[in-house]
């Protein structure tokens, strides 16, 4: 088991290296002048473009430029973000908690609810419970996220005025910013910091702002996981070993939850791991629509303004997240399935 994890862990570095080479080669498709232009701040500098190219070493061979870039990367020197008007790493650190907080709630919810509903739907397949969950799944799977988000905003913000977009109410935002001695930002996650500081009103306000984004993000993924889990569950319950378990005298609960569900989870774990990774890196639609200034919002704006250092940093970040999720899935897989663990 340990050998398996070590092997996968080492393999992870190989993949990250591959990702970095790929990202860098995409950057290299721009001409040296085009890349030097990023550093230009005034018309005066624009006249010195050839010198700038020379001084930055943009005409050097690929591998030299690549290693220079990696060296900068290890010092978290990722360049300057025009959109955030800050160095990329500083901006990243301030945007990350917002995305993290959204996913802290949405990832567990979508995995637990998706698997649970899928199991129920699979056990009671072709009954009314199953029909209801399937209709639900089809609706949310086919409804575009942005449309669903806008509908929710229209109802809950437009008509009822309960859940507003943004991260937190302005008054609280100012309070947090102005009182660093009274209000310590332990984790930078608003709900958790609020509770840790004993300011439950702030935590509650942040939670209210989180509600709609979490619902939007969770629904489509629940729908997908539910369908995967349902079909996997139906497939497993018709297998021979279920018959052996019944002939042994097992009750329905043991059969469904101990025998069938554990087997049915094997394909679902893969899907769930991927979905969790994607929602971590790609809450773009949700963050843009609910104006939550997180990584997705930043990336969307950077893409519009061709803020290349940001796009490269985000690509790298997504690569690392997905590779890590893959490792987690592999370990989970081995935990569930002895055929992988022991081979």
């Amino acid at each position, binding site marked *: 088991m340990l050998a398996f994890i070590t092997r996968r862990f080492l393999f992870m570095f190989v993949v990250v290296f591959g990702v970095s080479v790929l990202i860098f080669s995409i950057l290299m498709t721009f001409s040296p002048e085009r890349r030097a232009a990023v550093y230009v701040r005034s018309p005066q500098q624009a006249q010195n473009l050839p010198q700038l190219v020379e001084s930055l070493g943009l005409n050097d061979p690929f591998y030299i430029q690549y290693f220079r870039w990696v060296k900068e990367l290890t010092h978290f020197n990722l360049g300057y973000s025009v959109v955030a008007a800050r160095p990329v790493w500083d901006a990243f650190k301030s945007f990350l908690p917002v995305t993290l907080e959204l996913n802290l709630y949405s990832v567990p919810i979508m995995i637990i609810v998706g698997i649970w509903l899928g199991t129920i739907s699979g056990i009671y397949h072709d009954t009314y419970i199953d029909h209801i969950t399937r209709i639900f799944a089809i609706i949310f799977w086919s409804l575009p996220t942005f449309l669903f988000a806008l509908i929710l905003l229209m109802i809950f913000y437009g008509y009822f005025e309960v859940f507003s977009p943004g991260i937190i109410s302005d008054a609280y935002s100012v309070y947090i910013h102005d009182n660093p001695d009274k209000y310590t930002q332990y984790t930078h996650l608003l709900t958790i910091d609020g509770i840790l500081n004993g300011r439950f009103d702030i935590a509650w306000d942040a939670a209210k702002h989180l509600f709609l984004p979490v619902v939007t993000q969770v629904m489509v993924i629940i729908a997908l996981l539910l369908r995967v889990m349902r079909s996997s569950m139906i497939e497993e319950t018709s297998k021979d*070993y279920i018959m*052996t378990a019944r002939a*042994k005298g*097992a009750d329905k609960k043991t059969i469904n939850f101990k025998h069938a569900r554990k087997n049915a989870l094997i394909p679902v774990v893969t899907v769930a791991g991927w979905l969790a990774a994607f929602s971590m890196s790609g809450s773009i639609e949700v963050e843009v629509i609910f104006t939550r200034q997180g990584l997705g919002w930043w990336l969307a704006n950077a893409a519009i303004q061709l803020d290349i250092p940001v796009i490269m940093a985000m690509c790298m970040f997504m690569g690392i997240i997905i590779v890590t999720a893959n490792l987690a899935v592999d370990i989970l897989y081995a935990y569930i399935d*002895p055929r992988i663990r022991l081979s």
Partner: protein
Amino acid sequence: MPKLIQAEDVVTNFYTYEGVVKALNKVGLVVDHGATFGLVGESGCGKSVMVRSMMRIVQEPGQIEGGKVVLFFNGDQQQEAVDLLQQSEAYMEDLRGNHISMIFQEPNAALNPIMSIGDQISESFLFHRKKEMSKKILEDLSADDCRVFLPLKKLQQTLYTIAADNPKSFILIICSKIPILSLWQRRLKREALQRSIDIIRKLSISNPSETVHRYPHNLSGGMKQRIVIAIALACHPMLLIADEATSNLDVTIQAQILELLKDLKKTEIASILLITHDLGIVAETCDRVGVMYAGNLCEVADVEKLFQNPQHPYTKALLESVPKFSQEGRLRSIDGAVPNLVSPPSGCRFHPRCSHAMEICKQTFPEEIEIEENHMVACHLYVK
């Protein structure tokens, strides 16, 4: 010989999209105490559905719609007879694996791939032998050489006293759900594992204490079939149903498994109900044989009588289609194909393929009659 189980007029239908598959049309059979009953017939004639109906584990969308399956716990005495089709599901769960158990056709698929061998066999004990095992553990706990921290010992003794009294007690269910308290079951699981090791040792599996920690994919087909048999045998059932238990194994393993079953019948179990399409196996191992065709039982007789003096045209044809060493010329087969059971032929279901078919065969279903002692035939050729 006293009867062990008697099925009468069992009707099982499958409600599929194409229509109602009438898989069993009033089938009855009797297995005596200590006998080996063979059930033969072509694929799809309802042998498996019959035994599954007897255990009430017919798969969806199948439904048992009529008849009786009477189990005689104590010989032929009527007062100890129980009609299984009238019992609750909980009663059946208690019965399956305990009094009647089954081994399956495909050993590769019959074991749960992600549970260890030991866990899968232990389940049988944990379902049916909790009381007994708790008593054993109580004895162990009160023995002098048992070194457990005293308050813990008291707690365990209390819990196992409850378990010995009523294993489905509410307190135990609650305790099993609470993370640390659920550790009380450890001794129970260890005891079940020990019993699993004992049972697979009996089935001549080498290195049993190591095998229980392995997983099905580590074992060969023959070994897996032994494990499946071990699961079925765990609680010393009165009746072991072997549903084509040797069909998918190669010949040497097949012979070993059949020998094993014969030996086990002498020592561990009362009766065997053997389903097969191999008439050679029937001739070797069975005392009585039933021949099934398209959801009907055509003929039941003692094994010698059936092979020497078959009466039903289908039995005759079936026996003729077995290759023999002295065979010359083409091997005879039965013309036509097994009928579609969504719309089975009227009257006797065999009449379209029968060389002796008469007018009456198309109209009425033949009653089962006893043409000589213990030899039943359902055919219009023979009249009472």
